[in-house]
């Protein structure tokens, strides 16, 4: 990845703001193109009021959602992750959401093993006609995350030694001692 997409940059900035008391939940939304993305679009066209806290990434199908996407969201400091796809039986590709259901239900439980409360991850079905359902789920999730507070992040902070060594390697020709 040559540069960090804006959607991730935003999350890191938001963590910075937490200290200043202006914290707003930042939620990563991964939506299937055929149902939930259209549903979210419908919520917009219908002027259904809902919080702007979800940053949407569009994917072809909920079956495209690698659990890594969700883990990466938490790694980069999102406070919650929302995955939304077609109802069972409605998948544009017939069965992508069935595979997603297995994977993501397992992920929900696995997150708790990692110490991430399952309230921070939501997996749901929203069809193209369910604009109101989308708006409601965003309202509900945003409020839930607001109560939970900022996500504390994963892993320990970076040990200083590693980046310093890496930086030296970049600026010093190989085999030449630093002055």
């Amino acid at each position: 990845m040559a540069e960090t997409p804006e959607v991730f940059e935003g999350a890191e900035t938001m963590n910075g703001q937490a200290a200043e008391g202006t914290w707003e939940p930042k939620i990563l939304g991964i939506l299937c193109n055929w149902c939930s993305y259209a549903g979210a679009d419908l919520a917009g066209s219908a002027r259904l009021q809902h919080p702007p806290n979800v940053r949407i990434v569009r994917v072809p199908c909920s079956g495209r959602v690698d659990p890594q996407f969700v883990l990466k969201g938490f790694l980069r400091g999102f406070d919650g992750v929302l995955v939304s796809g077609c109802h069972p039986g409605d998948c544009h590709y017939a069965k992508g959401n069935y595979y997603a259901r297995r994977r993501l239900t397992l992920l929900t439980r696995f997150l708790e093993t990692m110490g991430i409360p399952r309230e921070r991850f939501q997996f749901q079905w929203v069809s193209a006609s369910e604009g109101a359902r989308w708006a409601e789920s965003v309202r509900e999730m945003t409020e839930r995350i607001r109560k939970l507070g900022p996500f504390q992040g994963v892993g320990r902070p970076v040990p200083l030694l590693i980046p310093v060594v890496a930086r030296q390697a970049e600026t010093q020709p190989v085999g030449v001692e630093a002055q």
Partner: protein
Amino acid sequence: MNSPTEQIRTEARRLLESGDVSVVIGYGPGSTPARATPVFVRRAEDVDRLFWSPACAQNLALYVREQAGRGKVAVVAKGCDARSIATLIQEKQTRREDVYIIGVACSGVVDPGRLAPAGVDEGTLKSLAPENGGLKADCGDRDVRLEREMVLKRACLFCDTPVPPLSDTLIGEAPPLQPATDQTLPEDLDARREFWAEQFSKCVRCYACRQVCPACYCKECFTDRLPVGWVSKRIAGPENWMYHTTRAFHLAGRCVGCGECERVCPADIPIQTLMRRMAGEVDALFGYRAGMDPDAEPVLATYRDDDEGPAE
């Protein structure tokens, strides 16, 4: 009755002499009585290189894939190893008819790294043999009784398949053992997050866990992909967290819990605590255990209409 070593040699000789298999993959004595080394026997006159002892820790399923397409191979397999082979068959990495499994009922194998903390100097160790549910170590000047909990590969203490569920011949009998319950992980979620942060901060990203794993056979691992993007190679807490959680998910429903990853880890990270939890969740959700049935569909490569999921 003959010792397991004798039985393995007899079986290997029969298989090689009849030409049924081109190679027998088994264990040979290692550098100390607490270590074994994988050996590849291709001629009947070499079967005496094979042996069996509580030191036979490696999961030899690791070598089955690289022999695929070179004719039938025989493998000496403990319960966990046989389950690994079944997983490989399920995932079409080898064929059932290409593997002859010399199953050995196993009562747990030794992790040499745990000998020193148990008060045994591996350098002067003369022999290591099973004795009344534990082990007897001959240290030259004295005999030391070792309990299983002290010196076995940690995963062995949680083992519930000491007898291979899949084998062509079976050596030994099921040991009367009760699997322990893993209580490493704290109950509180914040404490868990902190626990893993602490554990993964020790990781040096040597990838020994991946190299030793029979299920980690991707030609290109997600973590080796260039350009560096999804998972950074930086050796730091969050990136290590990403590596281990992703690996755990890639092994969901595939890890058989042999515990080799944990045994070879130079940083002593309790990887199997993570994997056992994952396996437990898979069993609870889908009633599936890795490598118990070579004909089963891999659990995440299939679905059922009535799987648990979000409300419709």
